[in-house]
């Protein structure tokens, strides 16, 4: 039997739907506008004649983007940083979290504090910069000349992710581990055959967090990568934006597309791959916040 809606419930329902629709459209609109502006004609973009749908369609802005070797270069650099950065960070995080999850580990409290303290206090930008400069000298002296390896190895550690993994490992029932040990499994085999398969979804979530922070990384990449062929996409976008917003540059512009369209095209290009994989990773992304409450 369905209960009849009372007036107050009905009003609240209507308000919910209306405001949610407004907010959802506000979230979506800038993307739609960016797509439209990137494929509209110069006059239409410059004089705000497009509101939602593209007018006087051209693809020259995209064509110019795709013909630019530096764009593909920046893209491949970002893929490089994301792939290797995630593997590296996930590797030591899983190993460390596994060790921390064991009650028999000596000085366990101290190691936990060692991690958590980095979430409370950071030395700041300047000391970190000086430290990275030193690291760079050391790396160069052992023959690692590419700054991107510095970015992969020395950046992007996150104590929170290790704590998420540790909690997941602590939740694995110890009977299964004991069974594996009775069968003669070593520590590494226990980790790879029991713990990793049993906390797959947390590992996926953490891997996603690492990957996203790598994909989005900007500040330190811009500070530390001096070779323009090694710059990742985010740095490339920002530098292009600064260049294309320059007044003199705009005054000398004479193309079928507006100078803004290039920026919009670039924004679209950097969002599309994320949108493509978004449906597959969304559930892991949502999961991350729910495991935030951490017990001792």
């Amino acid at each position: 039997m369905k209960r009849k809606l009372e007036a107050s419930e009905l009003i609240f329902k209507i308000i919910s739907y209306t405001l949610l629709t407004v907010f959802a459209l506000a979230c979506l609109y800038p993307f739609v506008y960016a797509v439209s502006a990137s494929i509209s004609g110069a006059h239409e973009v410059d004089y705000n004649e497009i509101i939602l749908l593209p007018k006087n369609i051209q693809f020259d802005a995209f064509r110019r983007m795709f013909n630019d070797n530096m764009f593909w270069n920046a893209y491949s650099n970002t893929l490089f940083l994301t792939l290797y950065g995630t593997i590296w960070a996930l590797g030591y995080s899983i190993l460390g979290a596994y060790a921390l999850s064991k009650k028999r580990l000596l000085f366990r409290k101290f190691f936990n504090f060692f991690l958590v303290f980095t979430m409370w206090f950071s030395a700041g930008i300047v000391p970190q910069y000086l430290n990275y400069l030193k690291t760079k000298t050391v790396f160069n002296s052992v023959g690692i000349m590419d700054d991107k390896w510095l970015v992969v190895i020395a950046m992007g550690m996150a104590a929170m992710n290790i704590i998420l993994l540790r909690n997941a490992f602590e939740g694995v029932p110890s009977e299964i581990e004991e069974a594996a040990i009775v069968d003669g499994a070593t520590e590494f085999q226990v980790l790879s055959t029991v713990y990793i398969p049993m906390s797959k979804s947390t590992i996926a979530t953490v891997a996603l967090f690492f990957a996203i922070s790598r994909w989005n990384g900007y500040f330190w990449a811009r500070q530390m990568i001096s070779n323009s062929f090694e710059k990742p996409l985010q740095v490339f976008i920002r530098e292009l934006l600064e260049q294309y917003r320059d007044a003199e540059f705009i005054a000398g512009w004479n193309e079928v597309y507006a100078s803004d369209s290039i920026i919009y095209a670039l924004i679209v290009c950097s969002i599309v791959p994320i949108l493509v994989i978004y449906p597959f990773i969304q559930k892991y992304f949502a999961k991350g916040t729910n495991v935030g409450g951490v017990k001792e």
Partner: protein
Amino acid sequence: MKSKAADFLIYDEASGSYRESPEQAVRDDVEKHYWLHVWRTVVKDWRLYLMLLPMLVVFLLWRYFPMYELLGCFKVADNVLPVSEQLFSGFYNFKLLLAGKDTLSTEFWRALRNTFVLSFYGLCFGFPMPIILALFFNEIKSNIARSVYQVLTYLPKFMSTVVMTSLVMMLVKQGAQTSNMGIVSQALAAVGLVSRETANAGLLNNPAFFRPIYIISGIWESAGYDSIVFFAAIIAISPTSYEAAQIDGAGKWAQMRYVVLPSILSTIIIMLITRIGSLLNIGYEKVLLLYNSNTFVTADVVSTFAQRYGLEGASKGIASAAEMMNNVIGMLLVIGANTIARKASDTSLY
């Protein structure tokens, strides 16, 4: 647990006296040769400690070694000498920042105030939004419709800071001879929220608009994603609670007030305490990307102040001193917030 004599003494019937139990002998031995015991455990269990090692090294090298560079706060900055060999200057840098008579000190106090104000406004306006969104999501009973709304509102969270700020800059850009102002500026001017001249000069060039833009773009970016945790708390409420309230004649507002709100209050308090704890850890990357020399008055925060003086300028000692003060206060806030959270709800955040 209290230890009893029986824990470490055994009655020997043959001799009629007590002797030490063998287990206690081991315990005594461990206590006497503690580090030897540690060493033996580590050697026996070397695989476990080997697993821990890479993580420790990474955090030590790139999280703890920078703290050594903080010595520079107390030294005369020098671009050639390493920090250990620089001249000691005591609290000179701090004095200069806190009580100096020149622009440096004024700028530092301005940055500190801006840091507080930006986070505080972010808290006031940004914090209620996810809760309201979660309440709205709860009203939508169709799973498909709700997923669509959720997917749309999480969407901006996936953008990088660079892309997000680029979009914002483009949407409120200034007008020029050959082009109009950004579409959002134009809409605001058409509605009458800002005058046409201000909008045409570029909203991000105007100190009065930096904070609203920063906070609104922040809400736009993360309100949807932040609502997940509140929504999870709301759907955990048992349907019988609503039914009981309805039988008692509660309308929608009464249900909100007496069923939903009390049920998610602990989540709200925890999230609020976390937010207050991180009041000073402002996302400097976003400020750095959005501000310019026109808006320093309202936009400059301590991190960007340090970045400008320490990385672009050469005052490394002063810059790290400024940021250290900020981070120490920030750390005290986090620890305080965490202690309160632990007391308030038995769940500690760390």
